[in-house]
């Protein structure tokens, strides 16, 4: 930097965060200013504000291909962080639309503010290049999410979900932080991009790095709900308000992957064989466990929770195929997975509002009660199962292709076998929706306007991603290239 302390690039680098912060302030003010009857519109304000932010960001704040370190090297202004920031904003805006017509959720400004603050933390996670910033960003994301999971104060399940999420989250983040403290001690720097050089210069024993990396991976595995730190996910997703469960399983998980990609690639290149070895094992265990346990579920949200654990395993396959194609496929996977899983949780939220239950059996006859909702569930579930022509097929293909490209045939085979197990339980749900009859068939399931809009956008997105592959893949490629 020459002369002045601040320059325009610094503010462009944190444009998404600034925008979200301003929006959160606006929502707080509007909650005070508007009469209670109009609080419903806060959801629209949040959603439209975020979409507007994405639009403005695309016009003014696109990073150049040459990445820059700004704010005293705390933030890296690059396309990887930018792609993820826009993804989180989009996910948050869809979640706001799903929440806006839920009685105890959508009419409260503090709900939207907490969600926005959490999104702000995710954006920082994706662009942090310093472990101090990284820790602060992870906690900025997590702490509002603990509150959101326990947002229904008079509901036993919701408070329990928040409670469990907090206890596991606090413990794993403390373990991760202990790893960070050793990392600082070993390298003498907190900057991720200097870390690798320092480690080389100090000639550290790889065993020290193995230990430190093990501690750090505990925290990351919790965020992406990978084996053996996956067990909180089913409980929390079941108890938390449904749109928040969707947000947790998509945006929060994608943020975890963004951090994982950056920290391991940039900070630990010398011990790459070690973490590839560990993460391959984690990937196999995660997808197998997620899929097998999903087979036995009777509750829709629990089923989706186990399915989301399995999907973390698939995405890890692309990651351990350490190559440009691998990272690209992970980003692409996360984008499509965000669209698909938000749609799945969105349909469950709409149905749950009418029926009061998320048991899979209660979905019987949905195709007659609300054909459009059933179609949207069909799109979401088939895409989750990885069927063409939906986005889920293309991304699974990309991930497996990346693995095969690097000679990881065994991993790809396990992945394909797991997809077949997955197909079974996704189709079981669709069977209940389309073939089973129920006594309440004449009771229609009304789909509120906001949810309908969000679901339509998400489903069209899922189909478009499956048919027009190139744009999505190229965006992911831009993000992946920015890593170096």
């Amino acid at each position: 930097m020459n002369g002045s302390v601040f320059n325009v690039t610094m503010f462009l680098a944190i444009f998404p965060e600034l925008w979200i912060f301003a929006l959160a302030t606006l929502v707080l003010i509007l909650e005070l200013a508007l009469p209670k009857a109009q609080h419903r519109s806060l959801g629209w304000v949040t959603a439209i504000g975020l979409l507007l932010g994405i639009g403005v960001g695309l016009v003014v704040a696109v990073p150049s291909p040459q990445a820059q370190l700004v704010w005293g090297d705390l933030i890296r202004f690059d396309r990887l962080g930018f792609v993820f920031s826009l993804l989180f904003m989009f996910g948050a805006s869809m979640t706001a639309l799903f929440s806006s017509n839920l009685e105890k959720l959508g009419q409260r400004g503090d709900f939207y503010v907490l969600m926005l603050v959490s999104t702000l933390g995710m954006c920082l996670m994706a662009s942090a290049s310093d472990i101090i910033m990284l820790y602060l960003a992870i906690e900025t994301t997590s702490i509002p999410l603990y509150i959101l999971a326990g947002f229904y104060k008079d509901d036993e399940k919701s408070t329990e979900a928040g409670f469990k999420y907090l206890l596991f989250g606090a413990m794993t983040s403390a373990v991760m932080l202990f790893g960070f403290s050793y990392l600082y001690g070993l390298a003498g720097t907190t900057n991720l991009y200097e870390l690798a050089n320092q480690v080389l210069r100090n000639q550290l024993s790889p065993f020290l790095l193995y230990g430190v990396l093990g501690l750090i991976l505990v925290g990351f595995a919790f965020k992406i709900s990978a084996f053996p730190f996956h067990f909180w996910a089913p409980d929390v997703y079941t108890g938390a308000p449904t749109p928040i469960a969707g947000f947790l399983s998509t945006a929060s998980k994608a943020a975890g992957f963004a951090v994982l990609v950056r920290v391991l690639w940039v900070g630990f290149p010398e011990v790459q064989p070690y973490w590839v070895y560990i993460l391959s094992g984690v990937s196999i265990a995660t997808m197998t466990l997620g899929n097998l346990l999903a087979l036995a579920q009777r509750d829709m949200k629990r089923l989706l929770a186990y399915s989301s654990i399995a999907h973390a395993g698939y995405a890890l396959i692309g990651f351990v195929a350490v190559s440009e194609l691998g990272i690209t496929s992970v980003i692409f996977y996360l984008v499509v997975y965000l669209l698909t899983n938000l749609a799945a949780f969105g349909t469950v939220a709409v149905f749950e509002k009418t029926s009061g239950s998320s048991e899979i059996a209660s979905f019987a006859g949905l195709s007659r009660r609300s054909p459009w909702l059933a179609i949207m569930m069909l799109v979401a579930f088939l895409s989750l199962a990885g069927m063409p022509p939906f986005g889920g097929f293309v991304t699974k293909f990309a991930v497996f292709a990346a693995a095969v490209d690097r000679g990881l045939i065994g991993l790809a085979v396990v992945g394909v076998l797991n997809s077949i197990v997955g197909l079974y339980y996704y189709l079981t749900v669709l069977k209940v929706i389309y073939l089973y009859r129920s006594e309440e068939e004449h009771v229609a399931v009304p789909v509120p306007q906001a949810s309908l809009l969000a679901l339509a956008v998400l489903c069209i997105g899922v189909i478009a991603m499956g048919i027009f592959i190139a744009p999505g893949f190229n965006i992911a490629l831009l993000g992946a290239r920015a890593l170096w």
Partner: protein
Amino acid sequence: MIPLSWYLIFAAALFSIGLFGVLSRKNAVAILMGVELMLNAVNVNLLAFWRYLAPENMAGQVFAVIVFAVAASEVAVGLALVISVYRRRQSVQADEINLLKY
């Protein structure tokens, strides 16, 4: 001067005690106290490394300040959630809070 390794051994012991507390205690407040011990071990580590290895660079101190600010907010949220659970069930025993399973 006290050698660096003494601080590191102390921090590792503190961390282990905290982790043991988190894993073995049933009472939610005791679990949160265990987490606090773990975070304090991190701070001891950070400050020892800062003082012995890079005293001219403030990063370690700043990191420690941020850690205890975050720890305070985490506990504030944690106790709030514990209270909301207690109001529903009249209990803060982690093993009795088991509505969600399977």
